[in-house]
């Protein structure tokens, strides 16, 4: 118990394509999280901002940006960059300071305003930047990487385009009543299959959009939560684990934006990078996949959701389609996945997304996820992976 901290409050700004400065979204989410927690801004002694490095952003998306916009209160600050895992790394930074006894109340904020279309690399002649080289020499976009993983599921496990479409159908239904989701419309298998192919075998509706959005989390020590009666008689939702492990050499699954895997002279290691992300979380919390009631995973594509189900140990390799087809991953099923609607309904707002997953699970574990509640959920897990060896998994329990 001593390694746990309390999720005192969560808040979000709705995802969309609002075209406003990211700071507005971040402050909106932060104020919502503070209101949800009942903690006064003046009580926050640590602010962590989630940063993204794109389009000249670096440097001005920072913890201080949000602290300043909320009105300087003298809190300490930190800034995290970990690609798609930014929010989880920011959360981990806050947790570490609380567990060390150096802070009692931390506010973690991630917010983004995204450009349209394919995420493109920085401009200029960047011959040592793999993210630039993959476009220059191969024309290798993000969806092309997702498509490689999807194709492997088809050729190795017999997955079909209809299976992938069914993930979209499920998630679209899950997110229908989620007030923070950008896309709230049912999709049919026929809709997905009729949308244009972007990178074979993935159709446009198999691939997540990029969105504006913000999410914020207020973390406190368990002692602070107890003293202030946070979380009512049941107590607050607790952070049981945060995994932000890097890959272990040799990484034998090709990762965006690289052109090659590591050299595995002695064969592949026991666990892939994505599997190791979840394993580290389970180990830290002292629980296993069988204890998980609900999962929020990074469905950059429909097929990737199926990969994550296996990477989290929720079923064996090659069996995620069986769960999907049986309705096990639908709300009401054995292990609901992406009750929020996932990236399919949100689109990706990079530095906010891992925090949005934590917001959703917090509402799920409190029984507050109106219209998409997983009944009786006590343990939830998140998972994501981003560029350059970043990935995360957060375990929440109540």
């Amino acid at each position, binding site marked *: 118990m001593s390694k746990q901290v309390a999720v005192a409050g969560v808040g979000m700004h709705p995802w969309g394509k609002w075209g406003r400065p990211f700071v507005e979204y971040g402050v909106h989410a932060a104020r919502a999280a503070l209101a949800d927690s009942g903690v006064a801004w003046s009580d926050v002694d640590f602010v962590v901002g989630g940063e993204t490095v794109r389009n000249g952003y670096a440097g001005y998306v920072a913890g201080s940006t949000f602290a300043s916009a909320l009105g300087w209160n003298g809190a300490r600050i930190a800034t995290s960059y970990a690609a798609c895992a930014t929010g989880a790394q920011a959360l981990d930074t806050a947790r570490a300071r609380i567990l060390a006894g150096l802070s009692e109340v931390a506010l973690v904020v991630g917010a983004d305003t995204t450009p349209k279309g394919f995420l493109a690399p920085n401009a200029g002649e960047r*011959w040592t930047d793999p993210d630039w080289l993959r476009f220059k020499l191969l024309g290798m*976009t993000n969806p092309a990487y997702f498509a490689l993983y999807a*194709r492997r599921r088809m050729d190795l496990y017999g997955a079909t385009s209809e299976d992938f479409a069914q993930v979209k159908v499920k998630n679209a239904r899950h997110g229908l009543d989620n007030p923070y989701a950008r896309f709230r419309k049912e999709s049919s298998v026929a809709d997905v299959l009729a949308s244009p192919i972007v990178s074979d075998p993935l159709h446009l509706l198999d691939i997540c959009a990029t969105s504006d959005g913000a999410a914020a989390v207020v973390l406190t020590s368990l002692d602070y939560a107890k003293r202030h009666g946070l979380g009512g008689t049941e107590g607050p939702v607790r952070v049981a684990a945060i995994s932000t492990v890097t890959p272990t050499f040799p990484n034998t699954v090709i990762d965006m934006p690289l052109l*090659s895997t590591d*050299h*595995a*002279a002695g064969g592949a290691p026991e666990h892939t990078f994505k599997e190791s992300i979840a394993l580290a979380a389970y180990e830290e919390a002292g629980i296993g996949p069988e204890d998980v009631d609900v999962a929020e995973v990074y469905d950059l594509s429909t097929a990737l959701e199926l990969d994550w189900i296996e990477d989290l140990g929720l079923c064996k390799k090659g069996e995620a389609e069986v769960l999907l087809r049986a309705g096990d991953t639908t709300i009401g099923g054995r292990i609901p996945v992406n009750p929020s609607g996932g990236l399919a309904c949100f689109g990706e707002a990079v530095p906010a997304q891992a925090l949005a997953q934590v917001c959703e699970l917090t509402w799920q574990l409190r029984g507050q996820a109106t219209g998409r509640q997983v009944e009786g959920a006590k343990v939830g897990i998140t998972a994501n992976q981003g560029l350059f060896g970043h990935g995360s998994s957060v375990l929440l329990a109540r």
Partner: protein
Amino acid sequence: MTTSTPAVAGWFTEGDDPRLLASRCTTCGTLVFPPPPADAATFCRNPVCDGDTHEPAELSRTGRVWSYTDAQYQPPAPYVPTTDPFEPFALAAVELPEGLVVLGQVADGYGVGHLKVGAEVELVVETLYSDDSGDRTIWRWKPVVELGEETEQ
């Protein structure tokens, strides 16, 4: 007169038997592709090796498809389009006998319909785009059509 030079220097050889050029750690033999620039400091990627010198090493010309896809929309810059309107091209990740998976475009005239996970492909060098200096070439993966399986392509 048209000249032909690699779009990127030092990553592959040309000619009748083209090969990818990796860098090999002279201490432990770990291979890295793409190779670091010649003047760059290099530290071996293998965590149990403290080697910091490397030499060029040719990789096998043939390998097996790890996975494959295509680009049906024109990628953003710095990708250089060569046709207007854009024509889709295929991509493959190929597992080489040395134990690396290397991405590449698929040779002209071949699409996802010619590929399968586990199928054999071989390295060829083709023109990626042309600029002021002439044709710029790149490595590509070409399906190996086994005898008796030739189609009319």
